[in-house]
């Protein structure tokens, strides 16, 4: 079945509509990935990068002094007295650390302060108590002895007692700063004013104000702010404030801004890349307990003070009952205080995960490019190669993600891209397979059809052939005893056409009837028509002594039912063996050849010859007569002989006549075989287009005479 080129295009277009739609949906999903389940996959993949390539922790610049279970059992329940904390602070500062950060907010007065005790315990002498030192003042004094940083907690909504901290960061206040998408808190929980004043700095300990907004994050802490505004004033986190203090006058703090928000934070010579909102994507190092010291041990003087020298020290909780635990992307549970350690280390080594504004755009471009590649390639490839092409693309995307992380901690989401491309691929592969399947079925159907047609034709031709051949008499068996004449006949059917026939029979003692005919058409209709013609001719020539009348009767009978408008050319002759008288009717057939004493001529059929039987409704056929002489040889043939072709020219009547003369001495059966061979030689392998039929009648005369050709 042929298709117009336009139809093919339309079909191809219809096959591509779904993949293109799926690709666009994938792009939409990628743009809004936070609203899809893919967000979990993405976070899981980003975490996997870290787990497989964690940040190396070569040295330990930070020491955590933990208020742990041991400390609580040694010094009693939390909160401890500020005097105890003052002692702890003094012990640490004695070792001259770079900075001491205290991951605790002291918002309320010490409950052991003499004033409070005096109010609670009515029996105590108030005037004596008033002279005792205020514990918060003692603690404040200790804090003032070194570079110390107090924690503040930014609040999204003001609470009773909340107020802004006192020690904001000294930034060059640009007009732009107010418009940047930095974390902002209207108020904060801060320590008591005398503590604030005594400490060198204040840093917030809010970890990622928007981190837990979706359940898929499962409390994993991936990002912390590096800068926040509390009541319009800028602050650093506790960790970075410690670093800034340690650098002293060189600790100039400069947030860097670009067209897409904040891009990094610089403190002195150190720099961290950040997200647009100032968040740091922490590249975690593996958790370690090496740098954790117990507060009880420090108070007991177990460690020499030098252990704190040139190190950052953070005082925080490390007790099961008090600590806030954090789940890291590495899958580890660490105390919240450990985040400050990770941030300080990150700043010192400049290590951060990077996902700048252009990375999502790169991912979108990769998705569209990959999708278009698939759309172009998959329909053109065999299914096996198509699967390989998708696998290759997915491998490239996922592998590219790992390579990007390895080379610069870039967070490129390969798995989501591969997953988003899979519906595109599946739909493409599906339509390719459906197309291939349809083609295969079509081919099978056509093969089956052609086989069936061939079988039908073969069956029909075979039936036609058997009808044709089964009706032909064997003259040599029929006339084995005859010595007045000899008859030999031959019919070789062509492959596709069957419509020739011959016949020979005795009408009575003396009269021999010979017939040769050729039905137009082929197959069963021609064979049946031939069978009817042969039977009618045989019957009606016996009934009717006038041969012309007999043939007119034959045509009338044939015409009664002839829906296919078949016709038959025929030459019918009756030989009186006693007299040699030959009556004949020619109905549109080739005139037979007569060999008489070495010369050849055509039987004169022009006089009364008519058109083929059934070519007209009723032609008035009339018989002709001629006298045969002993030794006369009559050759009846069909156009299968004269129109045999060698591809260029036809065998023709003249070649037939010449061959007949050449072989005339032979007995009729041998003569037939020789003529047949001549025709086949001439055809030189070209398939015969029509049946080849020959009938030889050799008149020998009276039995008394001996004819040289009559020996049978």
């Amino acid at each position, binding site marked *: 079945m042929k298709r117009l080129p336009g139809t093919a295009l339309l079909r191809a277009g219809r096959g591509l509509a779904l993949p293109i739609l799926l690709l666009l949906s994938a792009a939409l999903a990628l743009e809004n990935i936070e609203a899809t389940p893919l967000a979990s996959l993405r976070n899981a993949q980003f975490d996997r990068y870290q787990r497989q390539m964690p940040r190396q922790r070569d040295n330990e610049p930070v020491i955590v002094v933990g208020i742990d279970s041991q400390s609580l059992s040694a010094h009693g329940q939390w909160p401890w007295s500020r005097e105890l904390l003052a002692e702890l602070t003094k012990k640490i500062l004695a070792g001259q650390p770079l900075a001491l950060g205290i991951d605790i907010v002291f918002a309320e007065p010490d409950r052991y302060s003499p004033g409070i005790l005096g109010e609670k315990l009515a029996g105590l002498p108030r005037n004596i108590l008033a002279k005792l030192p205020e514990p918060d003042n003692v603690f404040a004094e200790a804090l003032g002895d070194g570079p110390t940083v107090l924690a503040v907690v930014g609040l999204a909504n003001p609470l009773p007692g909340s107020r802004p901290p006192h020690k904001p960061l000294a930034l060059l206040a640009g007009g732009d700063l107010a418009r940047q998408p930095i974390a902002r808190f209207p108020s904060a929980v801060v320590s008591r004013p005398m503590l604030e004043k005594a400490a060198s700095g204040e840093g917030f300990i809010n970890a990622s104000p928007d981190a837990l907004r979706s359940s898929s994050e499962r409390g994993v802490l991936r990002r912390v702010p590096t800068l926040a505004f509390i009541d319009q004033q800028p602050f650093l986190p506790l960790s970075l404030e410690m670093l800034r203090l340690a650098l002293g006058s060189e600790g100039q703090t400069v947030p860097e801004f670009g067209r897409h928000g904040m891009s990094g934070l610089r403190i002195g010579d150190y720099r961290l890349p950040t997200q647009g909102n100032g968040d740091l994507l922490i590249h975690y190092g593996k958790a370690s307990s090496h740098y954790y010291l117990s507060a009880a041990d420090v108070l007991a003087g177990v460690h020499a003070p030098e252990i704190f020298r040139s190190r950052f020290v953070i005082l925080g909780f490390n007790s099961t009952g008090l600590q806030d635990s954090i789940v890291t992307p590495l899958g580890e549970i660490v105390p919240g205080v450990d985040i400050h350690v990770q941030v300080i280390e990150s700043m010192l080594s400049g290590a951060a995960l990077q996902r700048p504004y252009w990375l999502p755009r790169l991912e979108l471009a990769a998705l569209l490019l990959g999708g278009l590649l698939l759309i172009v390639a998959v329909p053109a490839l065999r299914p096996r190669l198509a699967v390989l092409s998708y696998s290759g693309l997915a491998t490239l995307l996922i592998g590219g993600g790992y390579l990007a992380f390895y080379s610069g901690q870039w967070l490129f989401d390969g798995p989501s891209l591969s997953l988003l491309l899979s519906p595109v691929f599946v739909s493409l592969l599906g339509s390719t397979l459906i197309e291939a399947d349809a083609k295969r079925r079509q081919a099978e159907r056509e093969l089956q059809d052609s086989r069936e047609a061939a079988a039908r034709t073969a069956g029909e031709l075979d039936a036609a052939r058997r009808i044709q051949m089964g009706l032909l008499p064997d003259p040599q068996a029929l006339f084995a005893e005859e010595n007045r004449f000899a008859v030999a006949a031959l019919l070789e059917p062509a492959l596709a056409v069957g419509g020739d026939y011959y016949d020979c029979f005795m009408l009575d003692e003396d009269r021999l009837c010979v017939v040769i005919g050729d039905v137009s058409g082929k197959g069963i209709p021609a064979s049946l028509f031939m069978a009817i013609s042969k039977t009618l001719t045989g019957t009606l020539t016996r009934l009717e002594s006038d041969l012309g009348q007999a043939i007119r009767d034959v045509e009338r009978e044939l015409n009664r039912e002839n829906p296919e*408008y078949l016709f038959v050319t025929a030459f019918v002759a009756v030989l009186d063996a006693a007299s040699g008288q030959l009556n004949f009717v020619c*109905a549109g057939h080739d005139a037979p050849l007569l060999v008489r004493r070495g010369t050849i001529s055509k039987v004169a059929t022009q006089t009364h010859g008519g*058109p083929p039987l059934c*070519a007209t409704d009723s032609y008035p056929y009339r018989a002709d007569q001629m006298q045969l002489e002993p030794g006369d040889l009559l050759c009846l043939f069909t156009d299968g002989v004269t*129109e045999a072709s060698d591809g260029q020219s036809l065998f023709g009547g003249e070649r037939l006549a010449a061959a007949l003369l050449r072989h005339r001495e032979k007995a009729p059966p041998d003569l037939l075989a020789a003529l047949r061979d001549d025709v086949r030689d001439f055809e030189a392998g070209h398939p015969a*287009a029509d049946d080849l039929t020959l009938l030889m009648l050799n008149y020998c005369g009276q039995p008394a005479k001996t004819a040289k050709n009559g020996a049978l």
Partner: protein
Amino acid sequence: MHLPTREQSGVLIVSVSGRIDHIASEEFTKALDPLLANCVPGQPPLLLDFSGVEYISSAGLRVLMIASRRAKGQRGVFAIAALQPLVQEVFAISRFNLIMPCYVSLDAACKVLGA
């Protein structure tokens, strides 16, 4: 099979060419069909120009016979002209000149049919 036609002195002349054997006869039948449908009284006579026909088999003759019968049934005029010698011989042997009017040339045919 393509059968170019032209009209000359009121006769519709149809040029037939090539070999009309068993295979070509089916196409010949189809190509002839619409022309025969118009071969009725009041329409121009239909004349087949056989000058381009090299060979005709018995199947080809059958097509002509059926066409001739149909034209006769519709009382239309259907004839044939300008036979090549080989085709002329086939016509002579099968006496098809008795079945349908055969003319030596197109001019001769037009003189008779166009009147």
